[in-house]
């Protein structure tokens, strides 16, 4: 399962690679990283046919996570990627907006990696 992580914090890459090192080593999951919404769209356009699960931060300079979500859902990538939104502001408004735009799930920072792993495994098995 290919997972694209979108966050403006570069160290998120190292953290994910360590947190998911077993899954990466065993080949269950592979990760790609984008450090802005624009980066993420470029990646999706370059790899259109990859079955992708997207984990995106909402709060980023430039294109926000919500805008990215809107773009993805509008572009009708095939197959449609699963999008999980993450935010530091775990508020109703962002949640409703993300869900309204068609997000598949909503997570709040700080990330509970145990929970995230469970979610990813469930999605991967479906």
């Amino acid at each position: 399962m290919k997972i694209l992580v979108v966050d403006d914090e570069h160290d998120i890459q190292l953290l994910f690679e360590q947190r998911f090192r077993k899954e990466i080593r065993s080949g269950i999951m592979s990760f790609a990283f984008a450090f802005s919404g624009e980066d993420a769209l470029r990646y999706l356009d370059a790899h259109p046919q990859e079955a992708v699960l997207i984990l995106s931060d909402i709060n980023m300079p430039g294109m926000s996570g919500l805008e990215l979500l809107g773009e993805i859902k509008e572009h009708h990538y095939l197959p449609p990627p699963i999008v999980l939104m993450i935010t530091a502001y775990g508020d109703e408004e962002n949640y409703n907006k993300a869900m309204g735009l068609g997000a598949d799930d909503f997570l709040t920072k700080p990330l509970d990696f145990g929970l995230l792993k469970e979610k990813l495994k469930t999605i991967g098995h479906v």
Partner: protein
Amino acid sequence: MHLDAPLLAMFVCRYMVRLAKNKQIDASWENFFQVRFYVSLGLLAAAAVFGNFSWIASWATLAFNAYLVWQLYQTPAFKPQRWLVWAATPYLVVSFIVLFFSTFFSKWYNQWDDYFGTVQLCALAWAFFMWLYSRNQRKTQELEQKKLLEKEEAFRMSEKMKEELEVQVAQRTEDLERRKAELEHALAELKATQAQLIQSEKMASLGELTAGIAHEIQNPLNFVTNFSDVSAELVDEMIGELDSHHPEEARLIAADIKSNLDKILHHGKRADGIVKGMLQHSRNSSGQAEPTDINQLADEYLRLAYHGLRAKDKTFNATMQTSFEADLPPVKVVPQDIGRVVLNLITNAFHAVTEKKKTEQENGRTFDPAISVATRKEQDNLFITVSDNGDGIPPAVIDKIFQPFFTTKPTGQGTGLGLSLSYDIVKAHGGDLKVESTPGNGARFIIRLPYNTAK
């Protein structure tokens, strides 16, 4: 010596009556001289009727004249009229001699008649000239007296005015002193209020920062907890590898742990820096000028402002462009003060683009808010430029934006001191703060900081 003697008496009596009427001598003398005037009138008639043979009338007239002169001479109240005595006496003496000889030695007298007549005329002329002289004298005297009186009056008036003025001055002085005390009190209150306002402006901008700071601290803290947590897992794994005698694997894991510890240190320091910056921002005393990396400072406050606004308005977003000149030499400034200026300008820029986005969306148009912060060095100056693509500043208010308490925000939402304080801070650094704006096309604030602050 026929009609002249009674005429002289009439003249004197009339003169004295007039003086009495004019109150130049006591009024009680009026009747006295009026009676004597009629007597002299009778004597004149007698002289006219009896002609040359009226020696009795002549003696009576002479006696009457002598009596009048004596009266004038011996009354102290008539001292100012004493000249009459000196005018009349020669005439009276001459008249007496003439009368004496004409009465008792008429033959001899008739022989020398012309001489006696001449002498008598001279005496009369003397009297007439005395009268003329005294009249002149009196007139000058009167004039002088009048002048003196006028002077006295003027002096009295000026004294009175002086007194009035002194009273007024005392009153005014009292008024002014009371006013001065009131103003001093008001000034002291204003100064206290100003100090309070400046502090509250700092606190208000701290409030704007708080959400940004919380977000900025949250991220490094997340990294610290996550990297610590994952490192603990790695240690367990490493022990497992060692137990199963895979030292190479263990070594690789150890390298990962080491890099994680570096990350923990890095993010710990990052959080520390943010907290320190916040403390510096809220500190009341003015800080020390020190060589400062303006690029780093601008970047830091740009992030703080951005996250601060995001925390308040979750829908907000803007493209942030930074164009920092590489290898910018550090400039000597008070970092938290210049930071406050940059924060204020960026916050204003964010507000401007948010407003524009709101109105554009209401009109069904799309709008991409953009903020840019640029730094550059030009000759001996460092320029920090904060631009936005908002609605700009109306020409009507552009001259007022640096004035204290000027604000376009609704009451209670802005102190109106942000730009005014920013202006003062930049001025205190020897630089200046300028604004360029084309209505509808955004605003651009330019901070100039001189490298050579000594001048």
